[in-house]
């Protein structure tokens, strides 16, 4: 993990090209290209069922994309979740998936799995490196708990944490794998405004650590505050990508969320006509 505070030269962290995911006859994600650069927070928005989470699963290897490839810092990733994490992409889940019956600290320690190597023999024979590696892991995990504000609850069971803290713990666990790119799947779902603001601060702090962030969200205000760039996914296709203000004003986006107006703005007279026709049809339109 390197902090890129000095170098303004941005490099591409994630490069997904032509990602397509078909489930039988249904194409959930169609030919999506997306890049994320270092130091960036990129938003991925779209109506429900647009394929955002499916796209995430394609990126992280939970699904094997039907077509297309995902590259992390120039190397194409194999579609295996543990290898993707090992390469440096960590994620959280839309519906929280913590290890409910492990303690908060243990959850984060599990996140350290790919960054430690001590195998079974090392554990059984307590080889010299074992204790040191455990110590380091524990220290790192506690640092992350401090960072997310959960240090005081390190010995609680994950399932006993309140909802907002479970979300934070998921982020801490993901950070433990020392990623270069963090994928957040609706990090503020179900949060109140204060919690959402705290999450925002947390994501900025993560960005400042030099970790690029790709975030799925429904809360438009949150996305607009947070993201340098926003991509919009509608029915599995990326329709727009650009700075937040541009995307917000784009009529295709508005159309996707709110629907399209009539062809040709109806005049006042026409509107009255339509109204009258509707009133008429409701009285006798039932026989159709």
């Amino acid at each position, binding site marked *: 993990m390197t902090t890129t505070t000095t170098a303004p030269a941005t490099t591409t962290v994630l490069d997904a090209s032509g990602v397509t995911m078909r489930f039988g006859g249904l194409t959930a994600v169609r030919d999506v290209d997306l890049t994320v650069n270092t130091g960036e927070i990129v938003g991925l928005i779209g109506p429900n069922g647009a394929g955002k989470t499916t796209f995430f699963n394609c990126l992280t290897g939970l699904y094997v994309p039907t077509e297309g490839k995902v590259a992390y810092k120039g190397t194409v990733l194999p579609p295996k979740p543990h290898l993707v994490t090992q390469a440096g992409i960590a994620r959280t889940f839309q519906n929280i998936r913590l*290890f409910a019956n492990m303690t908060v600290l243990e959850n984060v320690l*599990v996140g350290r799995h790919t960054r430690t190597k001590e*195998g*079974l023999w090392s*554990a059984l024979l307590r080889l010299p490196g074992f204790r040191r590696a*455990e110590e380091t892991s524990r220290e790192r995990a506690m640092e992350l708990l401090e*960072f997310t*504000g959960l240090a005081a609850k390190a010995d609680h069971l994950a399932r006993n944490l309140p909802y907002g803290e479970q979300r934070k713990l998921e982020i801490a666990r993901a950070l433990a794998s020392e990623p270069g790119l963090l994928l957040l799947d609706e990090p503020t779902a179900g949060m109140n405004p204060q919690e959402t603001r705290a999450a925002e601060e947390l994501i900025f702090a993560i960005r400042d650590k030099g970790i690029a962030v790709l975030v799925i969200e429904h809360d438009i205000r949150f996305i607009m505050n947070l993201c340098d760039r926003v991509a919009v996914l509608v029915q599995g296709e990326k329709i727009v990508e650009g700075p937040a203000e541009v995307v917000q004003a784009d009529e295709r986006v508005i159309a996707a969320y709110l629907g399209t107006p009539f062809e040709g703005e109806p005049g006042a007279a026409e509107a009255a006509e339509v109204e009258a026709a509707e009133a008429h049809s409701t009285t006798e339109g039932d026989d159709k």
Partner: protein
Amino acid sequence: MTTETPMNKTTDTATPVTPPPTTPLVPLPHPAARALTVAGSALALIGTFLAWTWTKEFPGNLTVTGYPGGLQVLTLVGALLTLLFTLSGYDIPGLRWLTPGGKNSPVLLSALGVLATTGYAMGAISYELGGAVNLEPGAWVSGIGALAAVIGALGLPTDQPHDPGDPHPHHWVNLWFRLRHALSSPEPGRAKDLPAWAEILIITGGFGAGLFIFAYGIRTEYSEAFIGFLIIAAFGFSAVNRAGLLKRLSALTAKHRNVTLAAAFVAAICFPFTQSNDQFALIGANILIFATVALGLNVVVGLAGLLDLGYVAFLGVGAYAAALVSGSPQSTIGVQFPFWAAVLTGALASLIFGVVIGAPTLRLRGDYLAIVTLGFGEIFRITMNNLNGRSGPDVTNGSNGVPNIPDLELFGFNFGVPHNVLGTELTRSGNYYLLMLLFTAVVVMVFRRSAESRIGRAWVAIREDETAATAMGINSFRLKLLAFALGACLAGLAGTVQAHVSYSVTPEQYQFAGSVPPNSAFLLAAVILGGMGTISGPLIGAALLYLIPAKLQFMAEYQLLLFGIALMLLMRFRPEGLVADRRKQLEFHETGQLDVPEDKPLPEGATGVAKAGA
């Protein structure tokens, strides 16, 4: 319990409003109740010194006055325990340490234990000798004393304030709830720190007592004594638990973990020296084999969460491998490996078998895995049956198995003959018990060290949520295979000793379910009954599951029925098993307070939040 219900009815009608906190079940003034309990338990104690019956036909010789024997000893112990707990309630200096948790619930529990044991003894005498006329006055003295003690104990205020709530419309249900409430107790506070040597001494004493009780249970020579033992042990154990002594002890053992392991090991070493009868030492050795295999299964089930219903096959592979290279005249290979090589052969054979079975099956999850492993377990048994020279190549002698496995001889120490060690005789089974103990220690160490490592955490993570675990970078297939192979290897290790202990290895020893414990169903039950994911749990579970059928031969027909009932009751009342690991305890009893770590003030909280907000 039936005797005091009339009194209760009167209380409830007299005070129809919600009863004030800590109201006892029986309305007695507090001093009178305590005095009655003391008098009752003393009477029960005195009764054990009198004759209980006139004939020696009832086992244990209860005819002697002035010398308690058999079932009388059990009543005596229970009465003594009740007396001590009751006197501790008087705040007598020197006895106060007995009840750091509940004060009166342990009294009630131990008094109930005395009543149950004495009642059982009186019932058994009357039943076996044909009528209550066979009871001598001593039995009545103890029985009435026990009854008085229970009534007195029911008159003591409850340890925890009674939450009136809304009473159940049904009177009996209400009574039941109130009785259960009277048996509940608060958690003991933190003990003041003793010097380290004193704490270690207490741990040693605790394990010494445990060994004594266990050895006593194994030594019981007739089933009446064993049933009485079970009753008083169960009640006494819960009483000691309610009194908070177990919590205190477990706090100490958690503090000195290495001392605890050493003390447990030493206590286990002492066991064969307490048994002069080879038959009882054999029970000990078999319990150890069973417990070790159960602990191996605990790696697979308890840590990695892989439900393996064919686990006994790995024990079989180890045992067969060791038997074939043991130099038995019936072995088709006809070689004799030294023991260490035989152990390696057995463990390696199991390991390979585990990998071969695991590699294809571990791609399945949950129920499917259980069914496939069940199938493989049976395939092993049937294959061993068929490799008899008629249905297939002659490797295992089919259903005859490999008999006449010679006894081991290590460093000139012949395991087959009794030895005289420090003036006590160590029988053949005692020898093997000690050898097996070495293996158990190895398995305990493997379990403990692997559980407390990166690998163990990954296993638990896979058990909790496999998808999330892989997303955290865990190669779940490889780790599951590792758990499976390690579990298989540990079972194979135990199998190599089992082959020698039981002289012969036959396919019928390795069934899914059978009457002799090391079978897949009982292994799984030992793990679940004892407590998944713990070390002591499967050991205790295996000891109980082996000892009870072995001691109660007359119940053999109903064994599986009783076993099923016991499992159902356990899952209803203590789903985490007899020994709960910390996680399970938090999982099943979310009282809100439990999971707050005791000795940690919470200073970092504020700074952490500030940082997150920065």
